[in-house]
């Protein structure tokens, strides 16, 4: 059941965000309940009096998971590259979730800037996880830029809508059968995550669906089970849907009750 990102094997196909939890303790318990191996983190200005960043980092270290720093909030190539360099030093990892957004309402990826930043960061030795749309040509250009993982959105960040465009996601899977694909953002309930894995995607990345649930720890466990179920279903080979009924009970030997 393991999956590989940039030559690193992990057991869990669920990547979990660390924002918006009701408390640090709930965050830590949710990480554990999700059984994730990778959590996303960000960078923000540190107060020299509160030192909340330092406290957060100490908390995350208790979870004993890998971190995937993001460039959330960046609007330009320059901002994203600067943030990535600071993240690499702070977290001591070449991994970077490259996120450059274009619009505050949809937080949709700014794909032109994304491709350019991916090219620069790959050249500079980063392992780039690009948060992108489900557009095939953009995906292709990100791979040409050096990305070895793609993270298309399911729906806008924090929307909980599930998969807005299953056709496009299937197209990406078909065109790039050997590239690790992670649906990032927009998932609301565990069945959305199961659907992603049933499509043959390698993993999901989610945050709000767990963090804002009435019981985040329980929801983290639910997503963990859904991801496992979806992956097992994909490996089992789902039946093909049909437009008409097919009797499951054998018709041979049927008594002539109605004769």
């Amino acid at each position, binding site marked *: 059941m393991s999956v590989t990102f940039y030559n690193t094997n992990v057991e869990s196909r669920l990547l979990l965000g660390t924002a918006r939890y009701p408390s640090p303790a709930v965050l830590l318990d949710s990480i554990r309940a999700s059984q994730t191996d990778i959590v996303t983190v*960000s960078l923000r200005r540190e107060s*020299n009096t509160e030192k909340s*960043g330092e406290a957060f980092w100490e908390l995350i270290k208790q979870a004993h998971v890998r971190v995937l720093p993001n460039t959330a909030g960046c609007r330009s190539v320059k901002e994203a590259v600067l943030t990535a360099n600071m993240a690499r030093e702070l977290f001591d990892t070449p991994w970077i979730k490259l996120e450059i957004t274009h619009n505050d309402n949809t937080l949709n990826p700014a794909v032109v800037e994304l491709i350019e930043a991916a090219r620069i960061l790959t050249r500079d030795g980063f392992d780039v996880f690009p948060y992108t749309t489900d557009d095939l040509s953009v995906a292709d250009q990100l791979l040409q830029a050096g990305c070895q993982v793609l993270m298309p959105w399911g729906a806008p960040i924090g929307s909980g809508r599930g998969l807005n465009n299953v056709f496009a996601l299937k197209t990406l899977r078909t065109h790039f059968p050997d590239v690790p694909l992670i649906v990032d953002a927009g998932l609301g309930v565990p069945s959305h995550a199961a659907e992603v894995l049933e499509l043959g995607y390698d993993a999901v990345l989610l945050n709000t669906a767990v963090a804002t649930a009435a019981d985040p720890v329980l929801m983290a466990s639910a997503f963990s089970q859904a991801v496992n179920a979806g992956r097992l279903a994909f490996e089992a080979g789902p039946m093909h849907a049909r437009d008409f009924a097919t009797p499951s009970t054998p018709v041979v030997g049927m008594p002539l009750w109605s004769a």
Partner: protein
Amino acid sequence: MNIQLNGKPIETEVETLEELISAYEYNKTTVATAVNKHFVPVSQRAEFKLHDDDCVEVIAPMSGG
């Protein structure tokens, strides 16, 4: 010398970025730094001279999705 530290104007007598980090009692291993939108690695802070009107960013880990 007058500079901006995380968006706030301050007056300081320090000469280098490392001295600024120490003066403001940051934990130097849990912050990353940039000056005028350019990354300054921890290994270069001691030699990095600050000047009037510099904009210094001191960044730390935070929750994120």
